[in-house]
């Protein structure tokens, strides 16, 4: 939904803050949280999600926050919430814990495909936006839900590309395209992006940012994969701003159409 303009000033604006990077990182499923600083560096990400969970008294686990560089914007999610009230409760705790007022709403009651509940998400967004949160709701790419999120005061809309953690790619392209066209908020594709080319494609279509977790955490080399996603998101954004050419069903010579040595040639093809 963003316009074009000078690349110098092409920043992602979320809740009044400007971000140079358009790749948001999830931190789940990493084999070690100690990788986070390197992943942040290689990817260039400036916004990072974390989740809130009950302490497990039986197993000693570290606080993830100590691995997250100071200048990074935290975005706690409300994972674990099955309805609006639980999401609201988690959001409040996260803010009280000093994580700031950015919150990713995630309300899921389906255990197999982890599909978000649009209705409850709208409700939670409404309540939290009124309380001053910067609300980024994770939803199915449904235009009418997205319109209600605009009315509810969301700061962005985060449609899924495919089920969470599936790595299947931009399978909902058709519907995300509509959100990009119709919704006057940043559109951040979240969930399902499995490879840098998927994120690149989302950005080329005009998405404002991508959130990636599983594809990075599940790679053999997460730091390198994070770097690849960072570049791909940038590439897609730059391509969007550079105004791609059109597709054609037949060929169009890239070398001149006069023949090389043929008199009166109307052109023997040549490539590109």
């Amino acid at each position: 939904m963003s316009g074009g303009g000078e690349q110098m000033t092409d920043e992602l604006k979320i809740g009044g803050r400007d971000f140079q990077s358009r790749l948001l990182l999830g931190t789940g499923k990493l084999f070690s949280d100690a990788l986070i600083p390197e992943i942040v560096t290689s990817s260039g990400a400036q916004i990072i999600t974390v989740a809130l969970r009950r302490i497990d008294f039986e197993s000693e686990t570290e606080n993830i926050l100590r691995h997250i560089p100071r200048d990074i914007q935290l975005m706690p999610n409300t994972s674990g919430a099955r309805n609006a009230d639980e999401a609201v409760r988690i959001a409040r705790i996260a803010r009280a814990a000093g994580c700031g007022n950015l919150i990713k709403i995630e309300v899921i009651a389906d255990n197999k495909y982890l599909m978000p509940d649009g209705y409850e998400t709208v409700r939670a967004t409404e309540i939290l936006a009124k309380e001053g949160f910067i609300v980024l709701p994770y939803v199915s790419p449904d235009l009418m839900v997205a319109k209600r999120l605009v009315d509810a005061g969301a700061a962005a809309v985060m449609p899924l590309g495919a089920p969470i953690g599936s790595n299947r790619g931009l399978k909902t392209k058709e519907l995300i395209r509509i959100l990009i066209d119709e919704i006057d908020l940043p559109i951040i594709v979240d969930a399902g992006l499995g490879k840098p080319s998927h994120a690149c494609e989302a950005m080329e279509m005009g998405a404002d940012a991508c959130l990636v977790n599983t594809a990075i955490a599940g790679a053999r080399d997460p730091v390198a994969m994070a770097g690849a996603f960072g570049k791909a998101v940038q590439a897609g954004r730059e391509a969007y701003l550079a105004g791609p050419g059109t597709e054609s069903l037949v060929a169009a010579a890239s070398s001149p159409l006069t023949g090389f040595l043929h008199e009166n040639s109307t052109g023997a093809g040549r490539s590109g």
Partner: protein
Amino acid sequence: MPVHLIVNGKAAQVTEPIRLSEFLAMRGLDPDSVVVEYNLAIIPKEDLGKTILKENDRLEILRFVGGG
């Protein structure tokens, strides 16, 4: 006299009314790395020493973990 609590959804007890900060210490938890919800209200770090646990209190002791 023992104090009965619900901690993270499970029954627990302490032998006497102690401070929240003491309870965390007993469990080996650094107050800087956890979030404590006490009877549905979030307790700021600086107030952990002011709150004294009493019968039937409900505690949620939370932490930030990796999430997407």
